[in-house]
């Protein structure tokens, strides 16, 4: 039972990380209609930039994540402007191929700067809490709390603030949004920036638990895609539910069956769900 509770918390922490990564990706899909395959490499860069500010520059942990998030926000905007904007009228395959090009580029850059070796990020948050007899590391608690806070802020931003509302409007109807005076290009840049920012927060939070390497984004990339496909592309509730479902499935199967099964479970769930409902759990009517 203790093990179960422990793993449940680990699952929630992992779910929080997936959630922050998946929400950005699903927002980008909603607004730009692009599956951004470079998302995992933004996560990787986010982790490295956080690492850079924390160890090389030496600012405090929270500030390092904040600065890294801003840097990645700008990078996301650049990515939209330089790569996806020129392709906005091309078939969807071209976006994916361009995103793959960007992904390889980011990985090569990270490797050129920080090398291919694994790096460990020290965190000021140490110690652990005892809940119901299980020992939960403080870092995981921080992840869960931050994920909830960021999600609440994001919901507020999208539902209440004017810039957030433009995102939702564009997602619902691009032409309609343009007609009422929203600039879809600005919204596209904002959305990609936002997704990079969110994924950086996820990366900064989880980096002290995992190791850093230029290919660290690869498996996350695939899992996050599994999550948003599972939830239905472009659906925020779908992304949240999908994240926690897959994260808990993953931690539970790796604990009780084997780590190899844990790694593959996300995709097995995905195949099973799509076999029954090809548009995902929370799909909306997607406009073409």
């Amino acid at each position, binding site marked *: 039972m203790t093990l179960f509770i422990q793993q449940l918390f680990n699952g929630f922490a992992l779910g929080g990380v997936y959630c922050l990564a998946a929400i950005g990706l699903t927002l980008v*899909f909603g607004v730009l*209609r692009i*599956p951004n395959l470079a998302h995992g490499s933004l996560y990787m860069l986010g982790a490295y930039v956080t690492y850079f500010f924390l160890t090389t520059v030496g600012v405090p942990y929270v500030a390092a994540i904040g600065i890294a998030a801003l840097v990645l926000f700008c990078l996301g905007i650049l990515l939209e402007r330089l*790569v996806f904007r*020129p*392709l906005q009228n*091309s*078939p*969807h*395959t*071209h976006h*994916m*191929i*361009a995103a*793959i*090009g*960007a*992904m*390889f*580029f*980011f*990985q*090569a*850059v990270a*490797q*050129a700067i920080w090398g*291919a070796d694994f790096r460990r990020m020290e965190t000021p948050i140490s110690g652990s809490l005892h809940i119901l007899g299980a020992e939960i590391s403080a870092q995981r608690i921080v992840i869960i709390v931050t994920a909830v806070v960021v999600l609440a802020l994001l919901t507020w931003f999208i539902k209440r603030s004017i810039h957030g509302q433009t995102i939702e409007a564009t997602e619902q109807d691009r032409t309609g949004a343009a007609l009422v005076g929203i600039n879809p290009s600005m919204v596209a840049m904002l959305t990609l920036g936002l997704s990079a920012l969110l994924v950086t927060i996820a990366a900064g939070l989880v980096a002290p638990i995992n190791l850093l390497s*230029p290919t660290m984004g*690869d498996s996350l990339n*695939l899992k996050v*895609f*599994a999550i948003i*496909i599972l939830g239905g*592309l472009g659906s925020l509730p779908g992304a949240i539910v999908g994240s926690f479902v897959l994260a808990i499935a993953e931690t539970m199967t790796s604990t009780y069956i084997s780590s*190899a099964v844990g*790694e*593959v479970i996300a*995709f*097995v769930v*995905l*195949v099973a769900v*799509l*076999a029954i409902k*090809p*548009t*995902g759990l929370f799909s909306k009517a997607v406009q073409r």
Partner: protein
Amino acid sequence: MNGLKNPRVIGTLVVLLLLALTPVVFGNENYIMRVVTVGLCSAIAVYGMNIILGFTGQLSLAQGGFFGIGAYAVGLLTTDYDWSFWSAFAAAVVGTAVIGYLSGLIALRTKDEYFAIFTMAIGFIIYLTISRWESVTHAHSGVNNVKFPEGGGILDFSTPTAMFYLVFVVLLVTVYITFAIRRSSVGRTLLTIRTSEDLADAIGVSVGMSKQLAFAASAVLGGVGGAFYATVVGFIGPDAASVDKTFEFLMFILVGGMGTVAGPLVGSMIVTYLFEFFQDFQAYRFIVLGPIIIALVIFAPRGIVGYLGGFVDKRNRKKRVEAARSEANSKSSAPHDTTDASASTHAERTK
């Protein structure tokens, strides 16, 4: 499309001829021969991708996985189970056909982005299976000493040149199949699906079945490419099935030109050369190649062959316009003739 006068056919033949002469020039340089032969194996798999991506417009990211299945089928059966190469090869073909068909049953319920990501998940499941199922696939220690194809006492495929020609012949068959598909009603059916699935459905094309067959065919070609890759290289690891492999194939097809007959081959050769050229930089090569990929999709989305094909089309159009004009002039200036000519120009342009 009258046979040898078509510049496209001539271009394809020239490329094939140049390739056929490679061993004459580099016959003694084993390393170069091997690199080129591996490039040919990839090209076969890329032709498979071309069928589903180029012809039906659906991006399948499982190709690396099928390549891996082909490679591992041959690798494991010829070493651990001591089969002959050709029987293992047949098993690889049957295996990828079955797995391709079955995964297509589910994958093709989805389309566009869903299909792409779903097939990527299939590819990743295949990769994980190969890299984790240690008791069967030896996981990361890989498979060593994969057998050479048996020549039946007449031919000896252990020399690089003979191996090259073997793979080359298989590639020729693949190119011919692609060409035949493109010309046949099947090809036109697939191209109709690419243009509009709803339209295809409405005019009585059985969309599901056609896509299913295209997907299975692309999986089989992926498996064939992988099977020969295993025997050419002699050693395979889980990397042969990785998603990166798929991305590599994607780059080949993009550089060459999607949906063309010569594109995958040209792309494979050029990118293989680029990879070798940047060999010394190892992982850093993507600092250069990444932006090149992006620039290619933005500025030359039809690839090299598609780009050259554009010239051919333009020239043909010009010829036809001129022919129409001179005809109009010779008919001694009836005013409606010129409008005919401009109308035909317009029709050509809107094509």
